[in-house]
């Protein structure tokens, strides 16, 4: 009679990250994790990763014990295989592939590039004013908060047609228009945008000061109003503003400390604001506040279930910046305003702009944690949120308390 052997395989909804003699097993269905450090099993997993297979025979009692425990946590299952029989086909848990990937987009014949890259464009950010100088940390983080230097609409009209063409891209879902200057009444370009772009995609960004001076705030468009607590907390800015009845408006309270959260809470309560959010601001001196409130620890990583698609996405792209192009009023463009520009829309056609976003080292579309020396070897690197603006501003590429 032929012998039977136990064969263990991982479920497709399990994520495995093998680093430095330990492996994280994360069950995306139960939101539970196991850290594996048994040498024999690690070798088997490593072999699986190397061979791009999924599953192995269990020989020793300890292997059986550990895998039974994993089975009980729904990380995998065990089947009996008769001697000589081939193990079944089970897809490797970490297998994924993007057909029109970065390499394809860089090298495909011209004919294929345009139609494929244009589908990667999701968000367009238009900075109507020159929003900041290099040392202006405030506006770098919130481009429409402060009063800027520069002339509105300076040269935007020169490339309005390209904006319109970009605006028609099939997957584009948001066009953010950042208006920094308080005198919005002379903002004639907005009418042009409204005529030429899909109004459902337009989102206006301005600060509370601008909102107050805005005599006829467009009711139909989505609006984000920035309220920096450190600047306006002592003034009754909202009192002045509340007399206007405005639809489709959301407040973003910019906070720098725990105290400011309380101030913002009071404002929300006093004025019955329903649609609002808080955004931390790094002022150079409040690292403690970030460590307490923004930095991640194991608990915060697992506070919400992370699905397999998000994990695979984190491995390939930066989901925050991917598909975003920021265009300044002098035509310069980039994918993240905290990083160098990639070119100028006046010199580059749309195809070239998108190729730059795909291939430039200053593009953040593909900036993942695997690119960062500290995060690279962390077992949680694909579960962590994508690299954020805060990390660029603070100059520290892992806002976490784990490493």
């Amino acid at each position, binding site marked *: 009679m032929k012998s039977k052997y136990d064969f263990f395989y991982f479920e497709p909804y399990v994520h495995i990250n093998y680093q430095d003699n330990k492996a994280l097993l994360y069950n995306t*269905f139960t939101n539970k994790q196991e850290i594996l450090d048994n040498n024999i099993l690690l070798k088997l997993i490593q072999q699986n990763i190397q061979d791009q297979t999924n599953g192995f025979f269990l020989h020793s009692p300890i292997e059986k014990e550990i895998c039974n425990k994993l089975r009980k946590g729904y990380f995998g299952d065990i089947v009996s295989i008769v001697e000589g029989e081939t193990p079944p086909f089970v897809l490797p848990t970490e297998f994924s592939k993007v057909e029109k990937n970065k390499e394809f987009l860089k090298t495909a014949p011209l004919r294929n590039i345009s139609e494929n890259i244009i589908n990667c464009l999701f968000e367009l950010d238009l900075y109507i004013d020159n929003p900041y100088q290099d040392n202006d940390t405030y506006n770098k983080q919130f481009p429409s908060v402060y009063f800027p230097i520069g002339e509105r609409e300076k040269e935007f009209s020169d490339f309005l047609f390209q904006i319109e063409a970009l605006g028609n891209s099939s997957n584009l879902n948001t066009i953010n228009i950042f208006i920094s200057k308080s005198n919005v009444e002379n903002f004639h370009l907005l009418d042009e945008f409204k005529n030429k772009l899909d109004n459902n995609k337009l989102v206006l960004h301005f600060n509370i000061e601008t909102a107050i001076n805005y005599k006829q705030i467009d009711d139909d468009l989505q609006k984000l109003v920035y309220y920096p607590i450190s600047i306006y907390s002592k003034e009754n800015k909202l009192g002045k503003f509340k007399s206007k009845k405005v639809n489709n408006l959301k407040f973003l309270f910019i906070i720098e400390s725990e105290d400011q959260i309380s101030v913002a809470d009071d404002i929300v309560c006093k004025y019955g604001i329903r649609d609002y959010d808080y955004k931390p601001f790094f002022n150079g001196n409040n690292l403690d506040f970030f460590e307490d409130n923004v930095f991640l620890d194991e608990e915060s990583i697992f506070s919400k279930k992370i699905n*397999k698609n998000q994990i695979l996405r984190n491995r390939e792209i930066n989901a925050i910046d991917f598909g975003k192009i920021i265009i300044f009023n002098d035509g310069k463009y980039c994918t993240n305003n905290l990083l160098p520009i990639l070119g100028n829309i006046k010199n580059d056609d*749309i*195809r070239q702009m998108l190729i730059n976003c795909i291939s430039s080292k200053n593009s953040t579309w593909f900036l993942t944690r695997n690119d960062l020396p500290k995060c690279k070897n962390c077992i949680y690197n694909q579960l962590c949120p994508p690299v954020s603006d805060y990390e660029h501003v603070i100059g520290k590429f892992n806002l976490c308390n784990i490493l």
Partner: protein
Amino acid sequence: MFINDKILSYYLSDKKGIYFFPNRFARQIKSGIFDDVFYKKKYELLKKNGVFNKKEILLDGLYSGPIIRRALTNTIAIDFELTENCNLDCEYCIFGKFYEQIPGRKNKSINLNYAFKLIDYTFNLFNDPNENFSLGKPIYLGFYGGEPLLEFKKLVEIINYAKSKKLNYNFLRYSMTTNGTLIHKYIDYLVEHEFKLSISLDGNKNHNYLRKYKNKKECYDDVFNNINLIKRKYPAYFKENVSFNTVRHSKNPVNEVEKYFSENFNKRPIFSLLNQNRINKNNEIEFNKILSEPDLQIRIKEYYDFLKNFSERIKPSYADFFDGDEENFIPTGTCIPFSRRIFLTADGKILPCEKIDHKYYLGEVTYNGVSIDFEEIGAKLNKVLADIKKSCYNCSNLWHCEECMFSFDKKADKYVCKKFTPKSKIKEYYKTIVENISENKAILSKLINDYHEI
């Protein structure tokens, strides 16, 4: 859908994803009777996470005149069938003995005025600032036949005419599919214009035996010499712009052909299969002799499609990492007409691509000009959709259908899909795929590491 194999059952989830269940677990799920607590709990976990959810089907998408007009305004190519005539008489040619003859095909060549009228018409659309969102994108002028180089003078005139016209937002590029026998005469021009050249060649001399001149002499030596001429005289052009297409038949296995192209030209050919529609019943036995057995390299596309459709792990593009909106889904694999190309036949008919039967023409060019009624095309396609919608709802291949509406037959004034796939049939097909992948580990390895589109 459950696919049962010897050791595991494979559950192909509607919400996408392949799940692997020990057979005893699969039996319990199917019967709804759980004889062990562990599997009952596991079933509940899978259920809670949507594994068994049915995908909501909303086949409410419709074509419309403006959508089709916009597709043409942003098309990739204007293709011209320069001539129906060919200097070869390949055994498997769709106009040859193995196929039912197409009435009205009489070695016509293109009317230049008609070609010019189509250029005027399309360029006018391309220059529409309100509709063109393909700024900076090339427009290809593509030349087909018969053998297009038999009408080289006309090709030059079409290109000169197009070059004399203004394109505000795009620029011109050129492409051609040729049998390669006449290239030596015109290569300087083709190189000067950076033509993307696709040469038909089935492999080495033995592989290529079905490709013959009208006097039955094989064409291999001439084509081979011409390819080497390009390679020698214009190496950079050859590397960048020349590709090969190979018809797979019973005597040219993929691995041998790939080896031949790799060793001789450092290229990989694009394979196509013999067309099995409209076969002439009188010559069917003979046709079947040249028909290839599906080999691993060809079948691997089926395996790949299976994984792509069900595993959720193969994304066509980065955009697919973000949740899509599947409302207004239009069934079948039909492109929006003209979104990829507009094709002008030698007799002035306008088609959405060169693969479609000429009887489905969507417009024409006459002495009076170009006539395309976008609204009418939309209405025509919506009529097909209305007719087939019910069968699409019940078809197992709904989400992965690659059928083009222009291949549908009409019965009793209603369109019907020839590829309607009942559940039982598709299950059997998937079972074979799973069995083959299980038995041959090389398949999965090839799919993961080394697959390229055939």
